[in-house]
């Protein structure tokens, strides 16, 4: 995945990254902390979980309303749904295991979350969202075929679709969630 110089939808992409790690906030709300009272922690965690996902849903609605679609031509494909499982185990569980029993631990947890958010944002990993798996979507990375003309896009695109398979050469009409993440309109 390439690191981009700029790109649009910066706030939406940032919130989509937060949506990616929203299961962590559910864990923290359930687990609680002896330092922060539940009346503050639970609403904060619920907000951090709901707002970013609402923004993701809102972005999809805006794309629908604006007819913001792209024709994604399938070249090289990789099913990356397993990345989501991998990230759950590799990233969320260690953070969940961290006890929020001292302010130092809370600061360490927040610093870790900050690093993860920065990495996800810079590497365009805002497509990692457990909701896609829950709603039976598959996530593929798509790049232009080797024989595509030299003017073809070089960026790796992410296509979220209900299809089980994609064939090289297929064209899929998809809504633009960001400059690199697309969701198929209908099958």
């Amino acid at each position, binding site marked *: 995945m390439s690191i981009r110089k700029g790109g649009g939808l910066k706030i939406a992409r940032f919130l989509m990254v937060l949506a990616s790690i929203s299961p962590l906030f559910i864990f923290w709300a359930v687990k609680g902390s002896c330092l922060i009272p539940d009346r503050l922690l639970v609403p904060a965690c619920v907000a951090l979980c709901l707002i970013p996902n609402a923004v993701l849903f809102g972005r999809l609605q805006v794309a629908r309303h604006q007819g913001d*679609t792209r024709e994604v031509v399938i070249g090289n494909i990789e099913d990356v749904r397993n990345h989501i499982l991998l990230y759950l185990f590799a990233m969320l569980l260690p953070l969940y295991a961290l006890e929020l029993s001292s302010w130092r631990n809370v600061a360490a947890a927040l610093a870790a979350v900050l690093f993860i958010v920065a990495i996800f944002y810079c590497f365009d990993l805002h497509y990692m969202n457990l909701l896609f798996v829950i709603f039976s979507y598959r996530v593929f990375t798509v790049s232009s075929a080797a024989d595509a003309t030299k003017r073809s896009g070089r960026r790796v695109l992410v296509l979220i679709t209900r299809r089980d398979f994609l064939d090289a050469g297929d064209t899929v009409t998809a809504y633009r969630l960001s400059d690199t993440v697309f969701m198929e309109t209908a099958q």
Partner: protein
Amino acid sequence: MNLKFTITEIRSTEFGVGTLDRGSEPTFTVVPVDRDVKAALREMLADTWGEMTALTSKPAHYEASEKYGSVEYVYLEIDDPIASTLEDIHLAVNLDSDSSALNDTGDMFCYFARFVDKKGRKLTALRRAGQFKGILGKRLISILDDTLKLVQDRVFKLDSDFDLLIDESDIHVLRPSGLESLGGLQAAILASVKKNVASLKANLAFISFDEIASYAAVHPRAARYLSSIRSQSKGVDRKALQQLCTSNGVDCKFTKGQLHVQPGYELAFLEVLDRRRYEIDLVTGAPERFRAPSRQRV
């Protein structure tokens, strides 16, 4: 001539810009636009096709050596070697999308729209970015209440039509100068001298092209003639050619069965071969010689 695309049944519309960084290849980036801009682009497409068909229903084939007016409907096959840049743009897939591409318009040289109809056929429309770019430097005003106000935001103005349309087999050109600049034709024509000479050698084996090839490699006009002659080189009679050269004052000689053009006469010889030099005997005893920068078969 028909467009291999149904303008009234468009499934998808994309908008983008072409930028040219110093010393590098042109880059084409898709810029997300809303429904209204897409509708305007579809309108531009319909207007462009309307203008083309109003000019003629049987467009002439584009010839690199021909001088064209500012607006003339001509066509060129998409697989023509000189149109390789435009073919690349048309066949490009998954162009990078960047909504911030319009932040810096200094390097922008064109904008384009890519359409897909309900049958899945693609059409690419291009326009040089003269007005699109120029409007940024001007002060624009608009009526917000009952007084005129300066427009503070960045404003981009779309033109009323495109310079050219590319469907699956042809490039339909409304402004030939647009084709030249967008397709980088000058460089493509110079680059194709070797290929064109090889093709001419096969059809005109009695002509020595070595001197002509070296001349055309550094003279764009001669390179344009070569590109044009390529499509009309079959069946040329050696005696008729020699006679035409003599009557038009082009110095060439047969040596060892091959026609050699004398130095300084390369361009004139190519003009003869491209049917651009002719002599008229309307006045007895005073033949008149002409050169035709633009001609049409009758």
